[in-house]
């Protein structure tokens, strides 16, 4: 982005709607709608996870199933550094430490595994979730002799504002990547790594770096969410569903623009919320799976892609295959 010739009109057009939405979200706790705060917290968790997932996997096509690992690192950071009793760091410090730790883990894991292609990368990243689960489980049961930990609770409003803050950071990071040459580089890697390297992209560095950035964002959600439940253990922290959900929500919403993953996350987490409060938890996976199969078969561009197509058809536009 060249700062000297910013088109302010264009800029205000891009940012006006997001700012209004953000303001409305920021005032949420003052509406006197108690349930709204926790419902929107629930939305924000999945939006952040899904958007961070798309940041790396959507562009490069490397399907990462490590989301739960980084989310879990966040939860355990909170359990260790923000416990219910004893020495406790302020939450913001825990978030920073956890983001740094996740960044480091992702950087190392990425440097080792990002040469793997396709299904092998997906398997390995999922292996990371199971590995961390087993290691922590072993250390707790066999060495420390105490399973799980207690976390200091935070109020619903505090949790909500932290999530909103992380959400804003996530959006800024995504916007920045999209509008600099790194966005182009990521997509070129997704299409053809050799050609990207020939074009002058430091392929390994770009992949590892963005993977680590997305991991750092994912872990911060874990930190905040840990303060919602008083007790955490390895099985709740490293729950494989946290790896699958963001990927599936992104596919459902569509990954061509920023709104797709967010819309997918809101719709699915709402369905999950309704079914869980109605004690229909088992049906959630059934419905989730059916919708997903239908999505892949009938709207491969996701929900936002479908809406875009319908909109183009309504306008009678014949420019479906353009971009930029």
């Amino acid at each position, binding site marked *: 982005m060249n700062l000297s010739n910013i088109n302010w009109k264009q800029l205000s057009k891009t940012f006006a709607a997001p700012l209004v939405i953000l303001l409305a979200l920021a005032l949420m706790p003052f509406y006197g709608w108690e349930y709204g705060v926790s419902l929107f917290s629930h939305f924000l968790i999945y939006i952040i996870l899904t958007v961070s997932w798309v940041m790396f996997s959507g562009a490069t096509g490397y399907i990462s199933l490590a989301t739960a690992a980084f989310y879990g690192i966040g939860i355990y950071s909170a359990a260790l550094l923000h416990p219910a009793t004893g020495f406790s760091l302020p939450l913001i410090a825990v978030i920073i430490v956890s983001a740094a730790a996740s960044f480091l883990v992702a950087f190392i894991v990425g440097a080792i595994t990002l040469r793997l292609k396709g299904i092998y990368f997906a398997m390995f990243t999922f292996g990371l979730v199971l590995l961390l689960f087993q290691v922590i489980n072993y250390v707790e049961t066999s060495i420390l002799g105490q399973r799980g930990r207690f976390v200091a609770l935070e109020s619903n409003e505090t949790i909500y504002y932290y999530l909103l803050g992380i959400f804003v950071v996530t959006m800024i990071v995504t916007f920045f990547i999209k509008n600099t040459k790194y966005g182009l580089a990521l*997509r070129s890697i997704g299409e053809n790594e050799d050609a990207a390297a020939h*074009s002058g992209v430091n392929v390994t560095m770009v992949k590892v770096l963005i993977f680590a950035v997305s991991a750092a964002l994912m872990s911060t959600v874990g930190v905040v969410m840990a303060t919602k439940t008083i007790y955490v253990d390895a099985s709740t922290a490293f729950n494989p569903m946290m790896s699958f959900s963001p990927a599936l929500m992104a596919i459902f919403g569509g990954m061509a623009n920023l709104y797709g993953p967010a819309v997918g996350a809101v719709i699915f987490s709402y369905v999950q919320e309704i079914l869980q409060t109605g004690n229909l938890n088992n049906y959630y996976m059934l419905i989730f799976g059916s919708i997903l199969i239908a999505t892949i078969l009938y709207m491969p561009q996701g929900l936002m892609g479908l809406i875009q197509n319908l909109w183009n058809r309504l306008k009678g536009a014949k420019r479906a295959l353009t*971009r930029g």
Partner: protein
Amino acid sequence: MLKVDKLSAGYGNIQILWDVSLQVNKGEIVALIGGNGAGKSTLVRSITGLLGAYSGNIEFLDKKISGLEPYKIAELGLSHIPEGRRIFTEMSVRENLEMGAYPKNSWKNRKKTLSSVYEMFPRLKERERQLARTFSGGEQQMLAMGRGLMSLPKLCIIDEPSNGLAPKVVMEIFEIIKNMRAQGITILLIEQNVKQTLEISDRAYVLENGRIVMEGDCATCLASAHIKKAYLGL
């Protein structure tokens, strides 16, 4: 400008290139000719840094480049226009071209370079927002060449540009290559279309079974009995 000295390379135990030496001087069009399986692609992969060498040395602008990462070699001003027109199909024409300007030095000048590339390929400008996969073979080749020029290269390695294109389009492409040289870009042209390639090149190397079997100016090569028999079918 480019000097390959006794290069041996291959994949694991399978050696493809045997003591290959070649040189490209500033301002030249040098042709590298060889049939399928001769080792042309392996040689290009070695020069551009995708493949490590067993032995030998590669220099570009008097600097050793063997062992450097591909992106570093691209930053030095060596541009590779890949065979099979490997453009980014899910990106728009403009995004493809911007990708070409990715190295640090060319990124700053990308707007200026873009307009000169559009001047050279007016069809790309008309369709700058269109997805590259909707292009015909000839248009994709033009886009690949435009992308290669966006990095403001000193040397372009053009890999089989005429592959799979109609004769009329091939003539257009060769005109563009001559035009590129006129603009001061040195070219290493890798081709199977021997006759036309030798007509626009200054010198040629013939690669067979991973070895350079002949080198010299194009008139000599065209006159050689071996070339006539093996490549021109005369």
